[in-house]
Every structure is written in C-alpha cells, then in structure tokens.
C-alpha cells in the first residue's frame, strides 16, 4: 500500500513517456503572459530525472534528494527551482522512510509547500504552483488507499485551477499584466495538474479546459 521510491520512479517514467504534448501545452500556457518556456523547462528537468542512473531502491528521501540534485543542474527557471526546493525539503523529511502511506502524502505536500513559500516569499492566493499544492494538501488529507489518494488529488488540483482561473496573478512576470492574467490558467498550476495526470496514467483532461 505504501508509495516507494520505485513507485515514484515509475511515475517519472510515465510522465517522460508522454512529455511532448505536456511540454507544448505548458509552453502555450506560459506564452500568454510569460516567456513561454514552462514546458521546455519542465521537460528538461523530467528528462534528467528519468535518465538518472541511481537505483530507486532504499529510502524514499534518498531518492528524492538524488532527483533534486540532478534537477538542480537542469534548469534556471523559477518553477524549476521551486520544484527542486520542494524535492529537497520532502527528501529530508523522508530520509528514513522506505515508503509513504497514502494518508501521509498530505503532510509531505505541506512540507513542499512551506519550503516553496519560504524560498519564493510568495504567499497563498497569488495564483501560483503554491495554491495548487495547498489545495492538494487539503484535499488529500485522510486518504485511506492509493486509489483514494489518486482520486482526491485529481479533484484537488482541478479545483485549484477552477478556483483561480478568474483571479489575477500576483507574482513574477505575469504580475505586470495582472488584468490580462484573469481568465487564464497559471502555467505552474496547470503543470501540477498535468504532471499528476501523467504520473497516475489518468486519461482525462484537467477540469474541462481543453487548452
């Protein structure tokens, strides 16, 4: 029942297998107001993660820290750096765990979210990846099985997109066009939704926005 390093490695392999449409979709989302590179950056990072030789046996945390290390040399984008920070923090928190129970994922997402907020200085409500994690954290609390976790997670990331779509963005490049950001999905938030879908092998599009 527990999620192991091997499970995470398998999920990365699944994401990597379908990376191309994901990359295109995220670049497109980032090109409305940003520099159009969210997909490219993420694809580069997933690529080095999928490539890396280290065995995903042993502790989950060890594996997460290995992922952070290779990711740290793959991208200079803000989103990438936040993912690296999240991997490092959650890796340190699970250094001694052979697996993570579905019910503990929420807390681990919380660790990641807290680290992202500390690094970026960005609070909740700014329409960023942080808001997706907050929703994920709340939605997955009390998950009783892997299937339940997956279901809750899909609902939570969709809900976050839905909830923020009509709000303005308050950080980074998009901030300078606050008004124009209304009605568009934040590329970082969309990335979370798409990554999750790819990781669990879900077929549906996130919350009905066909992109």
């Amino acid at each position, binding site marked *: 029942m527990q999620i192991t390093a091997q499970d995470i490695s398998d999920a990365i392999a699944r994401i990597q297998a379908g990376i191309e449409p994901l990359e295109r979709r995220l670049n497109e989302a980032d090109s409305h107001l940003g520099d159009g590179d969210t997909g490219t950056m993420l694809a580069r990072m997933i690529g080095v993660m999928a490539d890396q030789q280290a065995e995903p046996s042993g502790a989950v945390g060890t594996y997460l820290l290995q992922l952070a290390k290779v990711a740290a040399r793959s991208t200079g*984008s803000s989103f990438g750096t936040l993912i690296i920070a999240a991997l490092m923090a959650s890796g340190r928190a699970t250094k001694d765990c052979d697996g993570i129970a579905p019910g503990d994922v929420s807390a681990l997402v919380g660790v990641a979210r807290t680290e992202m907020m500390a690094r970026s200085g960005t609070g909740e409500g700014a329409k960023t990846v942080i808001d997706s994690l907050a929703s994920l954290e709340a939605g997955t609390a009390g998950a009783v099985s892997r299937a339940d976790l997956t279901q809750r997670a899909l609902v939570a990331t969709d809900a976050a997109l839905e909830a923020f779509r009509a709000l303005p963005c308050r950080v*980074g490049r998009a901030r300078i066009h606050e008004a124009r950001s209304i009605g568009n999905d934040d590329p970082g938030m969309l990335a979370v939704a798409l990554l999750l879908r790819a990781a669990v092998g879900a077929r549906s599009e996130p919350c009905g926005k066909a992109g």
Partner: protein
Amino acid sequence: MTKIINAPEAYVDESLAGLCLAHPSLRIVGDEGRVLVRSHVKSAGKVGIASGGGFGHLPLFCGYVGEGLLDACAVGNVFEGPTVGTSLDSIQQADTGAGVLCLIGNYGGDRMNFEMAGAMAADDGIRSELVLGTDDVASAPEDQMEKRRGVAGLLFAYKCAGAAAEEGRDLAEVTRIARKAVDRTRTIGFALAPCLMPGRDAPAFEVVPGTVEFGMGIHGEPGLWRKPFSSADAIASEMVDKLMAETVSETSSRVALMINSLGASPYEELFILHRSVRTLLSERGIDVARVMVGPFVTSMEMAGASVSLCFLDEELDTMLAAPATCPFWTVS
C-alpha cells in the same frame, strides 16, 4: 534583426567560447561549462566575489570577471537565470577560504537559485553572503525597494566590492561595502526598439517605432510610460529628474555616472545623451567624479539607453578609483 548565429540552442555556449578565446584572462569551468573564472590563480585568503544571471546582457555578467572585480560568474540561458548547480559551482570557484559574496540582480529566479546554492555551499563549509542589486527606479516605487530590479548600476557594486576584497577586507566588510554601493546607486533607462530572443520570429515585447518606453526593463518588462520620442535633452531631463527625486540624492552631491547603451544605440547617440545629462547635473550642482559611456549592460540588440548615478562618499570614491582589469572595464 537577423542574428549572426548558428543554432539558437548553441547561442550561449558558442558565445562564451568565443569570449574566452578572445580574452584568455577568462576560463570556462563547471559541470555544465557555465561558470567563468579568472585564468590566473587569485591570492588565497581573498574574499571571493561571485555573480550570475541570464545571458544576453554582455558585457554583463561574465564579462566583469577580472582583477578588482568578479572572481566567478554563473551563466544561465538567454534571459534565464543560472541553475542552482551552476550557481553553486560559481560560489565554490570563487572561494579561497575567506568566504564569498554573491552579488546579483534582484530577479526572482536568480535570487532563489543563489539562495539555494548558498545553503548548499554552507553544507560544504563555505560561508557566503548575498547582496541584491536594486538600482532600477522604474521597477518599483522607492518604498518597495526590495522589489526593485538590478540593472546597470550593479557594476558600481561589483567595483566597490571587488576593490574591498582585493584590499584584503573580510566578508562582513566586503558585504557592507557592496550593500552601501547598492543603496547609493540608482538607474533609469528607456527603450526605443525591442530585441529578439534567438530562435524566435518576433520580439517577445513591443516598442512602437518612434516611441520611448520609459523605464522598460532589460528583459522587456513594461515601463512607466510611453510617448513619442522628442529629444535627447528632454529625455535626459526626465531621467535626471527621476533619479534626483530619490531620497538617496540628498546624501551626496558627488556622483559616479554611467551612460549605458542597451545594445543597438551607437556611441554617437550615447555621447549626445551624455552631454545633455552633464548639463543638467551641473545645473543642479552635482559634481561628476567619474564617468563611463558605452555598452556595459545590454539586452542584445535592444535600442535605448540608461543613466546610472552612484552617490559617492569617500569610501565608495576610493573603491571606485582602485585599479581593476577585466575585458570590458579597466581602471588604472
């Protein structure tokens, strides 16, 4: 805006290679070949100065590696900060045991990456400090100084910190001086034409021909206002007014001045602008202790210029006067 390039994805690495071939005082190191360091071994015990940032602003950042200036510089892709790993490499390279000052522009990604790199370096026993350049007065109001971006004025901080380090001062002192240089430096720029990212068909931002985009950032961040260009004197006057309205202008009537091309605006025009600015400064009783006019911090072929003032005290004056050599700036 046809570019003299081979492939967009080779832009940064080929350019760095050509830079180091032209200037053997620079050497490429690091796991990704994205850290530039001085070729000559520097004295052990000197505080290291590291910097880094996106590419496309030459001579900034890596062109300022040299004696009395930077020890190491992390290079990102075009308009994209260096990776955490590269940033870490630059800190390690700059260190000779006395700690490292990281001196970078205040851009979200760059700051986060250097902070993370600093934390990783600390795990390896390397002390480091981070100082963020915030000279661009157009990027946020004065009461939100912490949001302001670092642009051309970063060079004054490089120079002052570099001189202090070369003198043998310790990390705390070098950091104090860098911070003072940042605190006392202000820049305002304007764009007249955009630049094109390698591999793209059209500029990512627009500047209407004939129009001044006042306060536009070096990545095309929108400015404070736009209107038709009228004259060098008029734009100089807007710029000097804006700079002198900053609180720091009350601290000193002696300045270092930089008139910087954003890329395509040629020397002829920079000197015309310089003349206008000098007239205005002397009307205000400002004494220009030193001046630089040229392309120092650019955005590839963006047209336009920036004016930077560093309000001097005796200490900064001395630091700016100390000898320094790098491929694009020599003080002797």
